[in-house]
């Protein structure tokens, strides 16, 4: 069996990443800030649930939030009856139930008392986060990392999602996106009239850069291929809805 690390590196190299710089990166930047199975510092903490993405993709954000006194919970996205994720409302419901399971497993394991929850939804996880928020009153806010709610597809799924109720969408949403993405569509936010939305356009912020890969690209040029723009990454407040 080929080691997972080799597959991971080969995929990046085949996509256009500089192999020497990639190897150098893993030699120089190998240690993260995380420790495995350390003793929980028991206190009351807010909880953030990460939806979609992988542990690798969320490692920097997860570590950063934990360093500021937040318990961060993530599950990989899987299909309901098969390994491959269902890109439809079944996938949304699966993602929501899995993260709910993860939340209650963690509450039990760490003996947590949860009074507030924040949601982070990347890509497809954007609409899943909204789908979860409208049925859990502990959810106080959503951060959408180029989430599908900023396109045609996410709002379409929510429209066909039986648990979605616009009147329950009362918590603020911060949506970060690439304003140059031709697939983007912000019209859905005009319909969410019971909450505050903060729409933040990030020039030249490619979809795959919302996570560890975005940071790694600074160290390994063309990490995700030469077609990816690396110009800027300058945050720009595009529109604020209140």
């Amino acid at each position: 069996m080929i080691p997972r690390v080799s597959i991971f590196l080969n995929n990046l190299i085949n996509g256009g990443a500089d192999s020497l710089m990639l190897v150098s990166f893993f030699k120089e930047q190998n240690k993260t800030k995380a420790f495995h199975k350390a003793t929980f510092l028991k206190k009351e903490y807010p909880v953030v649930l990460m939806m979609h993405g992988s542990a690798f993709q969320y490692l920097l954000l997860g570590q950063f939030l934990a360093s500021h006194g937040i318990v961060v919970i993530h599950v990989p996205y899987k299909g309901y009856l098969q390994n491959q994720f269902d890109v439809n409302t079944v996938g949304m419901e699966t993602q929501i139930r899995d993260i709910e399971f993860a939340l209650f497993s963690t509450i039990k394991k760490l003996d947590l008392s949860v009074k507030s929850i924040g949601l982070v939804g990347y890509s497809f996880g954007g609409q899943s986060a909204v789908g979860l928020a409208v049925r859990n009153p502990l959810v106080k806010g959503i951060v959408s990392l180029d989430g599908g709610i900023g396109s045609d597809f996410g709002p379409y799924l929510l429209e066909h999602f039986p648990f979605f109720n616009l009147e329950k969408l009362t918590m603020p949403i911060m949506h970060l996106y690439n304003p140059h993405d031709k697939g983007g569509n912000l019209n859905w936010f005009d319909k969410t009239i019971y909450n505050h939305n903060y729409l933040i356009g990030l020039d030249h912020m490619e979809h795959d850069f919302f996570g560890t890969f975005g940071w790694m690209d600074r160290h390994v040029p063309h990490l995700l291929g030469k077609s990816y723009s690396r110009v800027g990454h300058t945050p720009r407040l595009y529109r604020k809805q209140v």
Partner: protein
Amino acid sequence: MIQVNVWYPAILKSEPVFTFKNYIELEGKEDQKNISKAQNDSTSLHFFK
């Protein structure tokens, strides 16, 4: 089964530091879990201040 990843504030002891490669290997384990409906098969990670 499904893997649960948790980052939390913790008491620092002498556990080995988790590396980028460890995370990639963890992602490989995520791939091996074939369907949803989580069981209690959690992996805990933490960050110290």
